[in-house]
């Protein structure tokens, strides 16, 4: 479970997150919905321990990210929107490197690497350098790296952005499987179709504040009916 309590973060005169609280449950996919500059990325960075909240705290399975950083992060897998691969490392080297950083070694490491490679269908390209991968292959490699240690909590920053339909399907199936295994999944997304299909709960934020929270059906109802996009625009004040 990933939770944030009373999160507040300012960058100079700009308030990125303003007293935001949330909870993402195990065995569920929770989606952060918000426009550009709404505070999604700042929130995800606070979960990953990359930035410290000015006020409030983030906990992963009860471990405070600021105080017990190593314990909290060892239970987390985080996929960044730009993947951040090393051009001169192969697919399997990326996954192995991440596994080692999560403390795996020997047979446990080898087994975990093979599982992650198989789960993402990367066996055919395992020895290809990241520089020559397509966008979809890069996403899969980054995701294999993210799940290699079998994290109980997963954070994904706009995972379907720029992906073709085949890659989206692979991602969708994987997330459903992980959810069924009881993994807590928190993601941010702009793709309303994906959000509707995958999300168990939605957290709508605007200007760093919680606007609405609930199941997709509840959010649509609070937005006055219609579809999720119309409800989202209404709740965030972009539509009357």
């Amino acid at each position, binding site marked *: 479970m990933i939770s944030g309590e009373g999160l507040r973060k300012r960058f100079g005169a700009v308030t990125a997150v303003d007293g935001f609280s949330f909870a993402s449950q195990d065995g569920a996919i929770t989606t952060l919905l918000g426009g550009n500059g709404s505070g999604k990325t700042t929130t995800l*960075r606070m979960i*990953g*321990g*990359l*930035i*410290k909240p000015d006020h409030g705290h983030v906990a992963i399975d009860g471990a405070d990210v600021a105080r017990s*950083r*190593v*314990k*909290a*992060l*060892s239970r*987390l897998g*985080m996929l*960044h929107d*730009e*993947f*951040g*691969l*090393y*051009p*001169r*490392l192969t697919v399997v*080297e990326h996954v192995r*490197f*991440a596994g*080692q*950083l*999560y*403390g795996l070694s020997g047979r446990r490491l080898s087994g975990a690497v093979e599982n992650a490679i198989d789960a993402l269908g990367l066996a055919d390209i395992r020895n290809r350098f990241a520089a020559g991968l397509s966008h979809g292959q890069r996403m899969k490699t*980054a995701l294999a*790296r993210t799940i290699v240690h079998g994290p109980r909590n997963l954070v994904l920053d706009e995972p379907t952005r720029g992906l073709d339909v085949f890659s989206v399907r692979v991602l969708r199936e994987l997330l459903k499987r992980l959810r069924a295994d009881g993994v807590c999944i928190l993601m941010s997304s702009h793709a309303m179709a994906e959000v509707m299909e995958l999300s168990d709960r939605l957290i709508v934020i605007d200007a760093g504040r919680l606007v609405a929270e609930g199941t997709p059906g509840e959010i649509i109802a609070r937005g006055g009916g219609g579809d999720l996009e119309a409800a989202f625009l209404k709740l965030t004040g972009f539509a009357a």
Partner: protein
Amino acid sequence: MNALTIFLKEFVDLLRDRRALFSGLAYVAFGPVAVLLTVNMLAAQTSEGKYAPIKFCDAESALLAGQLTAAGLSFDPKASICVNVPADLEARLAEGKSVRVHVRGDLTALSSTIRKVESTLAQFSSTLGGQRLLARGVSMSLTSPLSIDTQTTNSFSRQADVIARVLIILFVMAPFFVAVAAAADMTAGERERRSLEPLLVHPVGAFSIVVGKWLAAALLGVLGTAACVIGGLVLLQYSALAELGIRLETGLEAGLMVTLYLVPLTLLVTALQIAVGLWSKNFKDAQSYLMLMSFAPAVLGFVMTGERLAQAGLWPLGWELAALSGPLLKSTTPTAPFATVAALELALTFTVLAVCAFRLRSEAILSR
């Protein structure tokens, strides 16, 4: 353990990075070659007391041959410098007439010999003219009021000293140049290609990350410096250093000693390069700053001479510039003990790495 994992990943990545390897190896390969060529060119130009052989182009003159031989020049039928005189030279001189003499040769390559021929002939001409005037009752001093005698202050030992200093600077610059691109790539480059954030969300301490990266850059720095020093000394065995009066120790023992002296400095320099990379906005910025930093030994090496060099004490860089003359030139210049300097440089290295870890944990590292 995490530092070792990061070191191995960075080193594999580095070995596949042609840009970083070429940048590092370029100095190792071309630095000593450039010095070798410079030394040999200088030796060819300034070989004191040694002149190229000369010959007469067609007609010969025993009178001029005697003058030129007495001035230290030698004759050889295969010589490339030739003196062209008319067949009736001695008869015309006896009649009190003037004679035109041509000196032919490559002025750029054999300038010292040609100038010697010219000055010898000019002196003989002046003496001959004086004798003619004397025969007519005119004193030689009336026509030659000034007697010019030029003495060069560019002594052999001074030139040798400058060349020896350039050699030491070449070796001290190696740790600065070898790992420039590697250090920039694993810091500023990492941030630029957005792989830093994924790395930082792993349960790994910032100090482990910094140490892992530093170890990879430092290993390249030490290997590159050793190659530059040992390879450079092997190459310099074929140089004309001895002709310039420089007795350089070029054996393996001297090479290993110089490398050992440079190891602590290499560790410190690569730590500083990591720090510069972490504070740079992008790879290009980092590379520019690091290239500027690489010229520090050259600047310091030419500023710190004589007594200043002897007072270098424990100062990193200053100590190396002073101490390398020991194994290389068998100089007895007193310097601080190596162990003391190494301990100080290692302490500075870990201080710099601790500052780097602090930087890596700061939010500012994520801003672009």
